[in-house]
């Protein structure tokens, strides 16, 4: 895929003076081509089936799962997550909330699901569910609640994590995502501290990644960001990744949900 992107970039590069603009344009065209027939649709269908299917030790569906807007309400839930849930006493994002529902309603072991490697076993089901649920909010505007003190605390923690420098390279999230109109190689970097970057960046995951042919949820996206930052491994549904979700989601208020998107 890298080669294909590079080749496409070269096609657009006949005039040296316009080299950068043209190669960026070529990538945008390439993305538009991919957008027609996003394989995420297959995961959406799988997710909707999984929501309705009776599964787990309790042989129950997820149709009574409360994603924050009342039992079973899916539409609009995703643009208000992460949020505080009184039953768990925690701020949860979509994926960690789904694991709670799978545990409470279906009798699965939530800790085991959280520890399952990304893309394997029940983790792949969580991703499919998240894909469908996010798609049900497509085109809606982000509006994360900040009325509960735990939600405001998580925003502040997320902000601290976003600017925290560490690892072997002293990178922070802000190193790459704290300024407007920057690129890493030819890849545009959204500024996640404000809109439109926060809405566009945070609002695109789950996304189908063409380069590895996988559907990635927001948790895996953040996990891989930390890998590239050379940090240790953030646990699935950890408070750190959820706090970052609150920070980006609140910064993206009013931005449009485009998930599930398609990415290079």
């Amino acid at each position: 895929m890298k080669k294909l992107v590079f080749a496409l970039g070269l096609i657009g590069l006949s005039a040296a003076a316009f080299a950068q603009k043209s190669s960026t344009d070529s990538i945008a065209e390439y993305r538009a081509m991919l957008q027609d027939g996003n394989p995420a649709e297959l995961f959406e269908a799988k997710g909707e089936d999984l929501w309705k299917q009776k599964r787990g030790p309790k042989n129950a569906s997820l149709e009574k799962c409360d994603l924050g807007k009342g039992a079973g309400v899916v539409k609009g839930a995703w643009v208000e997550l992460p949020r505080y849930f009184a039953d768990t006493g925690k701020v949860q994002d979509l994926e960690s909330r789904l694991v709670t529902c799978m545990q409470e309603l279906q009798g699965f072991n939530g800790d085991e699901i959280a520890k399952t490697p990304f893309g394997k076993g029940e983790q792949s089901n969580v991703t499919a569910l998240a894909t469908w649920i996010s798609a049900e909010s497509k085109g809606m505007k982000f509006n994360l609640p900040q009325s509960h003190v735990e939600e405001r605390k998580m925003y502040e923690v997320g902000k601290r994590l976003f600017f925290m420098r560490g690892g072997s390279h002293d990178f922070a999230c802000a190193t790459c995502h704290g300024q407007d109109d920057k690129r890493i190689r030819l890849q545009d970097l959204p500024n996640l501290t404000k809109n439109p970057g926060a809405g566009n960046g945070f609002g695109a995951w789950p996304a189908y990644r063409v380069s590895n042919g996988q559907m990635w949820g927001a948790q895996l996206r953040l996990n891989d960001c930390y890998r590239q930052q050379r940090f240790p491994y953030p646990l699935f549904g950890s408070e750190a990744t959820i706090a970052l979700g609150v920070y980006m989601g609140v910064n993206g208020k009013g931005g449009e949900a485009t998930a599930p998107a398609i990415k290079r």
Partner: protein
Amino acid sequence: MNRIYQIALSAAAIALLTACAAPMPSSADLDKLTQDIIGRSFRAQGQAKLDRLSPDEDNQLCAEAERTGVPLDAKVAEAIEARNMKTIKAPADGKYLGDFKEGEKIAQSGAGKTWTDAEGSANGGNCYNCHQISKEELSYGTLGPSLYNYGKIRSALEPNSPVTKAITEYTWGKIQNARAYNACSNMPRFAHKGVLTETQIKHIMALLLDPASPVNK
């Protein structure tokens, strides 16, 4: 209204009020909460051990300035630069420039130090991620300044000129530890953090400063 229901309602109201009225913790308490959360949120994986999360005073000061938007006090910035300057070492054999072709390979490579990289495998410099360097490579990032014609535009290509010597020493120091010159530079501290070896840094030096390097064409 049934009395039990009334009590339940008022209990719910109190719970709600408590939640809404709960004060936000102080900034120091939020810092502490963040540290606690970091402690619960990560595990070691491969070579990415938990010590990579340990607070480093320079990083803490820069992160706070960036988060709050309040620039560092000039004296604090000078102290960070002085601390980092002490880490810079001249090349053991006195030679600053290696092979620019090897330098290009290191500049191209983004490998190294992640939990998916094998421990002990060669690290790259990641240079093109942020900088334009040779003109032939179009896939470059813009987080850092363009380094195309680096030596040429700094008049640093004459072997024995004092300008060349000054630029050579500055460039060496900058790659070894960028924060000796700019307290909160986003550039990795390549020598200080053990990302690149002295030999690798010499090759990158040649890419930037050798008159024969494509960078200076």
